[in-house]
């Protein structure tokens, strides 16, 4: 009886996270020490590094975090301890990397190992779980995101992490990094803007004309089934033809490779979620509300802009969120056809078997996608708020 009660008091997710964290800390290397970027490194476990003060503090905080997750009900307390733990994790990897880097060496690479990444993921999950339990208002979630971004910014700015391999790669390509970041943002938001501009009216028309709906939605789902790389390839032929035979097309920057096919493919992928969510959102509006609006003498246009679209907006925003996160991921693939973006580093790194370079492309992409999702969710929730 007592035993079942005790078990019930344990957080199931917490148990899984703690087990994963302990296993990763004990079995997976915390850091690889490499002589140069393509050499196979020397793995170091967390327990082999305990003589370093930062690692000792980290270990202590990890144990505290585990206890908090398993036995503390208070979400704020969990949040505080796990945030401290996250900071300690970043600080420790920075200090360890610095301590292993030979004085004045630029060739040596300190690559975070699986242990570090799993601990980072586990700590982040504990933080987000605690944040969810606090039930923050939409703007509080954005504020929390900003706070953690600031935390990361402070670590980057302080130079503590500069010895890490990923930062070394960044230092070598600072200008290119920001150029590709800008391209990535442009492609993601550009394709989103274009697909909203096309998809929203299409969705409205589909809602009004049910016959068109089935045909269009099926066509768009068909596009979704084409693998992204194949779609990029398919677009190269017609666009290349266009570029060589229509001077105007070439003049505005259309060619078989580069940003144009990337943008077109992204828009094609984005249309289905936008159109489908617009239709579903409009269908969700109570017909009695629309009937009352018409009966009071609102014009068709006033009903659309004043009643239908505002009421469908939360669902449409969900579609926009899906599209943005999807586009941020897909832009990485666009690098293969010369579209640019963080994918450039990923594919360069894969080509050179330099994992640190892959991370330089992958980590910002994940952060970008995650932040976009949090912000758009908050916007959708704050709109849903008054009418819920």
């Amino acid at each position, binding site marked *: 009886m007592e035993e079942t009660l005790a078990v019930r008091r344990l957080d199931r997710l917490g148990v899984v996270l703690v087990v994963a964290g302990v296993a990763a800390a004990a079995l997976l290397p915390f850091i690889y020490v490499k002589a140069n970027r393509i050499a196979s490194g020397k793995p170091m476990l967390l327990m082999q590094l305990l003589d370093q003060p930062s690692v000792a503090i980290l270990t202590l905080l990890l144990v505290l975090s585990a206890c908090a997750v398993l036995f503390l009900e208070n979400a704020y307390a969990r949040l505080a301890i796990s945030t401290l733990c996250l900071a300690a994790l970043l600080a420790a990897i920075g200090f360890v990397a610095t301590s292993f880097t030979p004085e004045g060496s630029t060739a040596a690479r300190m690559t975070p190992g699986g242990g570090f990444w799993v601990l980072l993921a586990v700590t982040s999950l504990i933080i987000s779980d605690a944040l969810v339990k606090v039930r923050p208002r939409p703007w509080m979630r954005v504020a929390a995101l900003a706070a953690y971004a600031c935390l990361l910014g402070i670590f980057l700015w302080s130079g503590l992490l500069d010895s890490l391999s990923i930062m070394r790669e960044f230092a070598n390509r600072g200008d290119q990094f920001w150029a590709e970041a800008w391209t990535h943002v442009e492609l993601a938001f550009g394709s989103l803007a274009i697909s909203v501009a096309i998809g929203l009216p299409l969705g409205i028309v589909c809602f009004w004309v049910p016959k068109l709906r089935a045909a269009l939605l099926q066509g768009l789902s068909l596009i979704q089934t084409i693998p992204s790389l194949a779609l990029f390839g398919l677009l190269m032929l017609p666009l290349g033809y266009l570029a060589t035979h229509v001077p105007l097309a070439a003049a505005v920057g259309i060619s078989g490779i580069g940003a144009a096919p990337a943008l077109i493919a992204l828009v094609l992928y984005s249309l289905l979620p936008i159109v489908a969510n617009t239709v579903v959102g409009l269908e969700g509006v109570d017909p009695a*509300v629309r009937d009352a*609006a*018409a*009966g009071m003498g609102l014009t068709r246009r006033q009903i659309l802009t004043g009643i239908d679209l505002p*009421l469908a907006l939360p669902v449409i925003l969900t579609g926009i969120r899906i599209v943005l996160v999807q586009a941020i991921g897909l832009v990485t693939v666009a690098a293969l056809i010369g579209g640019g973006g963080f994918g450039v580093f990923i594919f360069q790194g894969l080509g050179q078997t330099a994992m640190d370079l892959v991370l330089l492309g992958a980590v910002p992409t994940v952060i970008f996608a995650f932040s976009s999702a949090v912000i758009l969710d908050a916007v959708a929730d704050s709109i849903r708020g*008054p009418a819920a």
Partner: protein
Amino acid sequence: MSMIDIRNVTKRYGDTTVVDNVSMAVEKGEITVIVGTSGSGKSTLIRMINRLVPMTSGEIRVGGRNVADVPETELRRNIGYVIQGNGLFPHRTVAQNIATVPQLLGWERGRIDARVDELLGLFNLDPRSFAKKYPHQLSGGEQQRVGVARALAAGPEVLIMDEPFGALDPVIRGKAQDDLLAIQKQFGTTIILVTHDMDEAFHLGNRIAVMRGGRLLQYSTPEKIITEPADPFVQQLTGTTDRALKRMSLLPLTSGMAPAKAGLDHGLPQSLSLRDALAEMIWQGIDEAAVENEKKAAIGSISMSHLLELGRKE
């Protein structure tokens, strides 16, 4: 001249005739109730008045003007419209909902605010606490009142109501019906109301129209509907078991009283119907009572035997 004049109106969807050559006139300041089962065409008929449904043939005049000659939106802004489940805009506050038509008509801000407050007060909704609420924060009865207030916002001469009380529970429904009668009396609005509830029709209607299968079976006063049903269906709808009591409920006590008499111990208020008077006399176990005005002065008398006589078919 009638306020609403419906002449030979027919509505067909393909081969199905939903409204079949209906003609009826609604007088200014009256409440006309259209009763019928579902599929009788009653909703379609009233939705042709504000052109939410285009008619196949016939003509409807509101205030003397042919509705086909008035632009749709202008027509609808001048006719109040209330539907079952009220159709309030969930993303707008109570005040914004009520302000809908005045805003469409381009009233200035101050006039709209004053009107919203006036209507909220009229429907016993304190403007300070209700104006900023959203519809989902209101009870069903409050939502319904806001729905009627919204329809009356611009002071329309005509109010169309499609099963306005259908979603309310019986207790709140009775209260809502009484409120509507009071407000109709105050504004003199001409109301055309659709229901499937015969009791509601008798309670509210100056005139009752009975529809079945798209045809208008009978259109007359509630009393005539009971005493002279034009069709077996009308009789079935009103029920035969309690028609005496139903008819007595339509007649005021003052219509059947004898001259005042001295020496009566019990008094009945003159506002009662014959049916209420009968019920009260059965309950009190008395054979004769005085009829009193508001100041408790006897203005007449009524006896049990006379009451029973009044309830007999003619």
